């Protein structure tokens, strides 16, 4: 009777049932929330450490990649890694409480164990950017995915030329990582911050991020040297305005990099939630050069 004697488990060649190989799919790393810092009313910085020390040291990622973080029974979602790649499996995630998972997360104590899988997605090509001027532009939460490339760049500061960071938030109380601005500036970085609405204490400029960018571009005679790269992270509306200005200042669109947000339920090119036509944002993104973005319908 037993004519068909197929595999009950998966054949070794196709997918191994060894735990380590499956880790790329349903198995995840156990990680501990070692510290939580409130940054604003809605954002917290989570320091997360992969529990197993071998796994922790082996965990590597590139700046711009994300992990899926799971709170068992509550939910799972994609979050950009916001720490330096040299810190391996000691990760920092900055998370805004917006829904089920993230609100729950904002209330868990230190010591909570979460699941981490990844890293997933594409990254900012910081090595290609060496010996160039850099303009990093972030709006709102966009500063979060920008921090990993920034750390990489700061760690090799001498390999880069002029660095400008332009960061805009709705109001001063929403500014993230304020405690680090001083340190960034010590690395000879030109950091300019603008808010939509000032409060009593705010002394800096008020307005849209494009105004700061305009000054920066005017200073360059509206002609960015071809030896310039730009990284742009922020809400979808920001991309058009900012990227158009950069292109008008002669920056080739392959030298502008953006990070796109899409709904993601798998991070592995399977659930299709992040799909834009032929492109899975989780596999071919979230980091894209601007030419690829223009080439995709409904991308921004």
């Amino acid at each position, binding site marked *: 009777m*037993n004519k068909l004697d197929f595999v009950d488990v998966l054949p070794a060649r196709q997918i191994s049932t060894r735990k380590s190989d499956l880790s790329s*799919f349903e198995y995840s790393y156990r990680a501990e929330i070692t510290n939580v810092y409130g940054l604003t009313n809605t954002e917290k910085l989570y320091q997360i450490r992969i529990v197993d020390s071998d796994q922790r040291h082996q965990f590597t990622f590139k700046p711009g990649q994300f992990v899926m973080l799971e709170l068992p029974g509550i939910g799972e979602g994609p979050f950009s890694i916001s720490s330096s790649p040299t810190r391996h499996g000691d990760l920092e995630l900055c998370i805004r409480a917006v829904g089920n998972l993230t609100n729950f997360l904002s209330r868990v104590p230190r010591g909570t164990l979460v699941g981490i899988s990844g890293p997933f997605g594409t990254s900012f090509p910081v090595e290609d950017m060496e010996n160039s001027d850099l303009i990093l532009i972030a709006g709102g939460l966009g500063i979060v995915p920008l921090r990993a490339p920034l750390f990489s760049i700061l760690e090799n500061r001498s390999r880069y030329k002029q660095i400008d960071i332009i960061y805009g938030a709705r109001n001063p109380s929403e500014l993230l990582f304020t405690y680090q601005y001083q340190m960034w500036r010590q690395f000879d970085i030109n950091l300019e911050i603008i808010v939509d609405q000032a409060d009593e204490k705010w002394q800096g400029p008020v307005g849209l991020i494009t105004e700061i960018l305009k000054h920066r571009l005017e200073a360059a005679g509206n002609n960015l040297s071809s030896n310039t790269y730009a990284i742009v992270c922020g809400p979808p509306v920001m991309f058009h305005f900012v990227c158009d200005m950069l292109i008008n200042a002669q920056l080739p669109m392959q030298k502008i990099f953006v990070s796109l947000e899409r709904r993601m339920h798998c991070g592995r090119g399977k659930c299709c939630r992040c799909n834009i036509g032929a492109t899975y944002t989780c596999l071919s993104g979230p980091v894209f050069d601007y030419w690829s973005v223009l080439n995709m319908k409904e991308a921004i």
Partner: protein
Amino acid sequence: MLFKVFPRDQLEILYDILAGHHLVGPQIIGTDRNGQELFAFDYIHSFTELRIDFTSTVHSLKSFVLPPRENLSSFALANNDWEKNVDLGIYKPHVFFGLHPCDINALNKLDKVLTGPVYPDPFYTGKRKNMFIIGVNCIPQPWCFCKSMGTDTVLSGFDMFLTDLGDKYFVEIQSATAYDILMELPITEPTDEDHRRFVQLMDERNSKFTCQVDNSDLTKILDLEFQSPVWQEWGKRCMSCGTCANVCPTCYCYGVTEHVDLDLKSATKQKQLYSCNLIDFAMVSGGHNFRPDSASRLKYRYYHKHRGFQEAYEEALCVGCGRCGQACLAGITVPEVIDSVRRQEVPK
């Protein structure tokens, strides 16, 4: 490929040889308003239930490889600690007795995404590996446009494929297991007459395809007509119910949810099939929806199937089975939509 023939009355013997396994095939599940038989794939318990002369099934066999709901993992919870358990949910070997070319082609298309190239899905792949497939030739129905999609015949993805020659079955053999099984039947080499009969039957079948889609340059046309007002008109009709994706043999999109059990000691992570027609499909945090209206979601379904997948895999993610059009309460069919985009008018 090897070809053999065996007498028609031997089909029951073939069934008997395989009946010791879980066996899935087309059977009658009722009749429609007009008294026409309705078929579905389900477990078969006796030869008389098996109706390999079926027209087409309402649902595809998707639920056997991509269950509508599936547990991805379960957790044992204790204070802030937990253990994760993964059950890949792989079935014992299953025999699928009587799949039409379109449904076999649909599985082949799903394989392209779900078994590779990066992060093969072990839940799907495990089930797929354990399938023994017996294909059968079909009689074209008025809503089938598989010929336009190039999926009216199938070249791979089955173990054996049967064509009814009248008094015998013509069988294409594609696996050693199938060959072994057939050795228990009185099989013979096809005669010249059998060859002629086979070709003649295929010609007859070909002439019966009435429904067509003009696919030429479709990827470009979908890009060019991305802003076409035609989509708005279809959008007005579409109820965003997701039935089309539900019955489609190639729609595989899903969502993941997690639940804590009532005892607070265990939790599950579940995947359920979804549809890009449902309103929150592309909604991200903060409530921004990349496809907020039914027109953009309906358009996306076509765009993904006939352009995106085409670009990624050099084929469309549609086998032309026509099930979506048959099931759609708003009467939206693929041939009409594509035709209207080409000609810029929506049929009344």
